[in-house]
């Protein structure tokens, strides 16, 4: 098989990210002279350049459709493994912006001193490579390999500080993830058995026509695949690993897990649900609806009880994934990607603020934030805005509109009970975030939090805050990501 020019164009972004990863690793290994600051800055710049190339590419090519790695089928259109199309553009934009934000949060003096710089950026770019491939994948073999390329570097990043907490967090995430991969592959092997193909497009055409005896096998196989993804994106009841892993990881890595890994998993599930395994009207979509309802309820209720900032963000990210699964279950890609984009921007900002506070107050309790709006007005107000968007309250209109779009999608599909569960969860979510916001406004008992914030952190947090404000004024840009 020869590669065509379209193939090269479709994989240009993952290819540049992978080359960037190797460059970073080699630069760090071979270049031992020079100060730590210069080396760290150069590595940050190389990483940022690779990601910026990806953003520039999708900005130029956003309206084109490039099916790549195709082979002509016996009947019907050609079968393709990787497709660059508007949905891919939207997911890549979310993933790359998230990655760029994490790189900003890992700049010199922000990254934990125990973390080796070259390896960290290498793993980050490797995971981004997998994430971008996953968003464009259209056959099950590519989906599985890409998903592993996202997951394995993430666990290495969790353990990269080489301490007790990191190794425990990484072990938990690793065991759950490998189990989920095995379960998913088992399902894929049966899907291959009943349909005779791994191309999503072929599976979706052959599934309705299979032997009625095999229909139950196909359902179980699809269920296995969805359960495997449920572990990866920490949907309830497969969420047990997530809070411990976030708490054990360095804050930058927790931000990476919450932003890039999670978006990649949601993107992969979106591709699978809309293009192949669960066509419209399939009972597998009901399974995803039930997962969504359970995930948002359990995530939000558990978040109510948390006393640590990172754990609260971890549980709230479980709740947010529940909201994401709702439009996903009815196959509304536009609402799902819009929600994901708003979530990524404000989560990055919130983790940035938590990283600043945690560097000076390692306990990371919510009470450490007491009175921050007065003592540290810039950071305090930005954090309040991020939390307001996450809760979906005005003036955080970006959160409000994306939640509304998710509602609309569910109501259009006539799933009233899920809409009711979502409405209840919006209320619980308000209580979760208002508790933290109240701490920020409360009068401090002892000396309030006040420090010189490092410049890169200021840049990232204010960019996120600016983006959140712009998205709140112009929420249509969120939904324009997928046209």
């Amino acid at each position, binding site marked *: 098989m020869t590669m065509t020019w379209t193939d090269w164009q479709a994989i240009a972004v993952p290819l540049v990210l992978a080359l960037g990863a190797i460059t970073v690793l080699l630069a760090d290994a071979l270049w031992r002279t020079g100060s730590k600051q210069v080396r760290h800055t150069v590595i940050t710049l190389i990483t940022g350049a690779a990601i910026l190339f990806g953003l520039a590419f999708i900005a130029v090519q956003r309206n084109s459709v490039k099916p790549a790695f195709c082979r002509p089928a016996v009947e019907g259109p050609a079968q393709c493994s990787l497709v660059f199309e508007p949905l891919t553009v939207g997911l890549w934009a979310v993933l790359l912006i998230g990655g760029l934000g994490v790189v900003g949060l890992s700049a010199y003096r922000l990254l934990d001193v125990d973390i080796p710089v070259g390896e960290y950026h290498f793993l980050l770019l490797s995971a981004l490579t997998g994430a971008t491939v996953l968003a464009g994948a259209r056959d*099950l*073999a590519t989906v*599985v*390999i890409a998903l*592993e390329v996202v997951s*394995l570097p993430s*666990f*290495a990043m969790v*353990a990269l500080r*080489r*301490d*007790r*907490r*990191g*190794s*425990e*967090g*990484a*072990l*938990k995430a*690793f*065991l759950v993830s*490998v*189990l989920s*991969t*095995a*379960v998913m*592959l*088992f399902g*894929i*092997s*049966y899907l*291959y*058995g009943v349909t*005779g*193909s*791994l191309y999503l497009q072929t599976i979706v055409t052959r599934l309705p026509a299979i032997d009625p005896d095999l229909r139950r096998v196909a359902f179980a196989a699809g269920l296995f695949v969805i359960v495997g993804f449920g572990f990866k994106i920490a949907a309830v009841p497969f969420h047990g690993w997530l*809070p*411990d892993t976030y*708490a*054990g990881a360095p804050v930058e890595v927790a931000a990476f897990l919450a932003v890039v890994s999670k978006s990649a998993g949601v993107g992969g599930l979106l591709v699978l649900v809309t293009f192949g395994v669960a066509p419209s009207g399939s009972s597998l979509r009901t399974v995803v609806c039930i997962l969504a309802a359970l995930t948002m309820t359990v995530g939000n209720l558990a978040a109510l*009880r*948390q*006393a*640590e900032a990172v*754990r609260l963000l971890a549980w709230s990210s479980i709740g947010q994934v529940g909201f994401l699964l709702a439009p996903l279950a009815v196959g509304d890609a536009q609402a799902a990607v819009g929600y994901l984009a708003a979530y990524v921007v404000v989560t990055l900002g919130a983790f940035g603020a938590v990283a600043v506070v945690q560097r000076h107050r390692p306990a990371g*309790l*919510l*009470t450490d934030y007491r009175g921050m709006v007065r003592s540290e007005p810039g950071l305090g107000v930005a954090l309040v805005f991020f939390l307001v968007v996450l809760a979906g309250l005005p003036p955080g209109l970006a959160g409000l509109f994306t939640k509304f779009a998710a509602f609309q999608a569910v109501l259009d599909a006539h799933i009233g009970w899920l809409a009711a569960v979502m409405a209840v969860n919006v209320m619980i979510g308000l209580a979760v975030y208002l508790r933290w916001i109240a701490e920020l406004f409360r009068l401090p008992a002892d000396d309030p939090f006040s420090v010189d914030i490092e410049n890169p952190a200021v840049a990232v947090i204010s960019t996120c805050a600016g983006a959140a404000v712009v998205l709140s004024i112009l929420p249509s840009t969120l939904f324009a990501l997928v046209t």
Partner: protein
Amino acid sequence: MPLILPLLLAVLLFCLGVYGVLARRNAITILMSFELMLNAVNLNLVAFDAWRLDGLATGQTLAVFVITLAAAEIGLGLAIVLLLFRGHGHVDADTARDLREQPELQENEL
């Protein structure tokens, strides 16, 4: 050979793997159980491939990928287990509990 025989063997291997993951506490044994599960997948893929004969050898190709994937997973897994051993002095997946949520903190907070 009828298709049912390799499929039954694969189900048996997979269940054995699931049992190992759920019942064993030693992280190394859990990793070995994962290998069993992934090999059950390989057996399935190769059996379906021989049954389908689709001319692309899709199942066999994916099986080769799964073998590579298993090697990568076990490599990283052993590294993490080694790190756990250096920090905790054991490789018991259940007793590594530094990170569990502390209820007394939550009661003070509420």
